[in-house]
């Protein structure tokens, strides 16, 4: 989809040059492959399930330096690594991992930063098992991949706690102004890349904190806000300006900003509009979209109510509809807010769940109940219009559908009723409509997404690029960042060529 199945010839040349450096050769010789393959994957230290499911502090504690070096030693430093092409932002993974093995953590961090503006975030939230770690040759040989994600997290945490990332030398200002719409994963990435290239970048963000889904969606126990704050502060040190509470499309349109002298635009306005199933009772009190539920708890800090003013229902028996990462975040949040029972209701089976393996595993440890092959058909309210029960239907798996997953088919007559006092719908969202509605000439696809040329992320309007959920409809942080890297490269070329505004 992104047009990036292979790594570019220039990157391949850089990777090879690193591979052939003397220290790398020596490191490869120092430990035989057989010995490396005998080392077990270093487990991620984490808080005990019975403790962590009562508060919002982070679950994973991070590898210690000796554990990180041992993990890095497992990497075979393959001559033809698969991992780099498995990474949507094309980090030179073998080089950073070998720098960890060598003990040069600062250099490893700098290596990652060449390709990734948000390493501490990606080390925590990327689905590595379906990306870099899936194509790891060690996994093919032994069944257990190098823990690339855990190493990325280790290296970026080391960098942050030892004085922070050094600001690279920035070329002289180009005099070009770039407007980035949305301070989410794609917007932050584009801003970092273009600021480093010498352009003047302003990010316009509708909410009052930067981060997009990283701040309103992903909970503190998986991605502490302090990590994000540090990443955003780094961008500000690169010279990026942030305009908060500025809703492009409303406070000013793209055309208004063009008239104000912006030369290029990146639209990363994300997925708005939560989807519902359109079944009876979905607007009862106590039925939330995952976006609202998580926004109340994360962005507005409802977990600290009434010290913070925004409330949220705690729920006694909470049901979360869906099987993705957002569903896992929601159900684990409900448990932490005091739900005696917190359930996942998913229409397919365990094998089809799109959530990261680690999130599912953590949820199970924390006492989340999984109800597979089940779908709600209606919600029942009490006399105050509050949800008190839901009717569900059992499903069975039929033939594979367009996604390749077996289609769930209702089992006739299998309806049953179950008591719930909190429901969170985590079945996806549609693109935010504000920019498409207010930007004449912008070509929009049938699902409300912005149409782009996938090789450059250029939209139908000259100088306007887009990426992330506003073009994909609903994807991951790292795919949004991959789009952003592609867009930033094309935008930089355009700004340097001095194309007409």
């Amino acid at each position, binding site marked *: 989809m992104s047009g990036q199945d292979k790594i570019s010839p220039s990157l391949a040349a850089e990777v090879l040059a690193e591979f052939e450096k003397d220290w790398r050769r020596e490191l490869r010789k120092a430990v035989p492959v057989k010995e490396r393959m005998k080392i077990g994957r270093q487990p991620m230290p984490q808080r005990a399930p019975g403790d962590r499911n009562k508060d919002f502090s982070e679950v994973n504690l991070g590898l210690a330096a000796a554990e990180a070096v041992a993990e890095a030693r497992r990497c075979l430093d393959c001559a033809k690594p698969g991992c780099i092409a498995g990474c949507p932002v094309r980090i030179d993974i073998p080089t950073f991992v070998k720098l960890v093995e060598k003990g040069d953590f600062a250099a490893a961090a700098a290596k990652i930063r060449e390709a990734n503006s948000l390493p501490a975030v990606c080390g925590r939230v990327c689905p590595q098992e379906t990306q870099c770690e899936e194509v790891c040759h060690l996994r093919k040989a032994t069944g257990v991949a190098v823990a690339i994600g855990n190493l990325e997290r280790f290296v970026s945490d080391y960098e942050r706690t030892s004085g922070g990332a050094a600001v690279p030398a920035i070329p002289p200002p180009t005099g070009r102004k770039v407007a980035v719409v949305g301070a989410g994963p794609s917007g932050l990435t584009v801003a970092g890349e273009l600021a480093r290239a010498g352009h003047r970048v302003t990010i316009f963000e509708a909410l009052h904190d930067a981060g997009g889904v990283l701040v309103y969606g992903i909970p503190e126990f998986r991605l502490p806000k302090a990590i994000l704050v540090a990443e955003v502060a780094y961008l500000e040190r690169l010279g990026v300006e942030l305009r908060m*509470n500025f809703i492009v499309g409303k*406070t000013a349109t793209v055309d208004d900003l063009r008239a104000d002298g912006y030369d290029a635009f990146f639209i990363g306005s994300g997925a708005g509009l939560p989807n519902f199933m359109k079944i009876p009772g979905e607007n009862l009190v106590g039925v939330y979209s995952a976006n609202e539920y998580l926004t109340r708890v994360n962005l507005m800090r409802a977990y600290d109510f009434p010290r913070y003013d925004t409330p949220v229902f705690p729920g006694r028996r909470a049901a979360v509809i869906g099987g993705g990462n957002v569903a896992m975040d929601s159900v684990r949040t409900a448990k932490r807010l005091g739900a005696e029972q917190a359930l996942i209701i998913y229409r397919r089976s365990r094998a089809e769940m799109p959530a990261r393996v680690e999130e599912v595993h953590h949820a199970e440890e924390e006492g989340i109940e999984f109800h597979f092959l089940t779908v709600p058909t209606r919600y029942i309210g009490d006399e105050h219009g509050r949800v008190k029960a839901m009717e569900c239907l059992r499903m069975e798996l039929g033939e594979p559908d367009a996604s390749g997953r077996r289609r769930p088919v209702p089992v006739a007559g299998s309806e049953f009723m179950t008591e719930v006092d909190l429901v969170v719908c985590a079945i996806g969202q549609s693109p935010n409509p504000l920019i498409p509605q207010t930007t004449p000439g912008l070509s929009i696809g049938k699902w409300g997404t912005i149409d782009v040329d996938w090789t450059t992320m250029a939209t139908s309007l000259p100088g306007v690029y887009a990426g992330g959920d506003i073009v994909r409809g609903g994807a991951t942080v790292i795919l949004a960042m991959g789009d952003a890297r592609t867009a930033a490269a094309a935008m930089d070329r355009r700004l340097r060529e001095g194309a007409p505004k």
Partner: protein
Amino acid sequence: MPRVVRRERLVPNIHVLEVEAPEIARKCQPGQFVIVMPDARGERIPLTIGDWDRERGTVTAVFMAVGTTTRKLSLLKAGDIIPIFAGPLGLPSEIGAVGTVLLAGGCFGISAIHPLARAYKAAGNRVIVLVDIKADYLLYWRDKLAPHADEFVISSRDGLYGATDYVPRHVRDILGREKIDRVVAIGCTYLMSSIAEATRPAGVRTVVSLNPIMVDGTGMCGACRVTVDGRTKFACVDGPDFDAHLVDWAELYARRKSYFDDEVRSLCAWEEETYP
């Protein structure tokens, strides 16, 4: 950051807030709202825009001090900074030359119908303004509304301004007296739903500006969903104006009251902290 130009008590419990927000002042249209958060621990709430000055770059909203957020807003002074004053949000009201328009407002809605009165009058309509107040001393902005009104009707419950009756009776009287082409009602849910029932038998087109609970206000969270004509709509991006006769009022009442107990708890906690 948005700076408070003016915050005054207009009448008991009702305050006016004028804020320096040049970008919003340049863009806003009748019927739109802003999202306001009074401090870093506050809640985001929508306030309907009651006036603006494009030259001075200010936006004005009127609110009633009821919960924690509005109490905090009611303590602002000129020169204070509001961390969040974002907008203009929602779709602008559709204003046309329709003939005779009855604009009914109660509580904060008296200010919210002001931009509509100005725009409908400018569009060549006959404009009847009907304000609903509990007692005569709660009337505000008569001077701002009157210049745009061909007729100014006050529905007061203490009788100093005429009949002691609720606003739906006035609406029925006006409908019985002359041909009304459109009714717009803005205020509490009770005011809007009772006017909807008053105009329903005659089938007069009636528009309400709905006031569900919102969080982000930009179409992201879905807190503000309302059922209109059997379909779920998001008031922040599909509204806030809707056809009053198609709104599921019972659902809106229930959803408005979602956090009633929490609102009391929040206010008590804030009072204990603020006035120890």
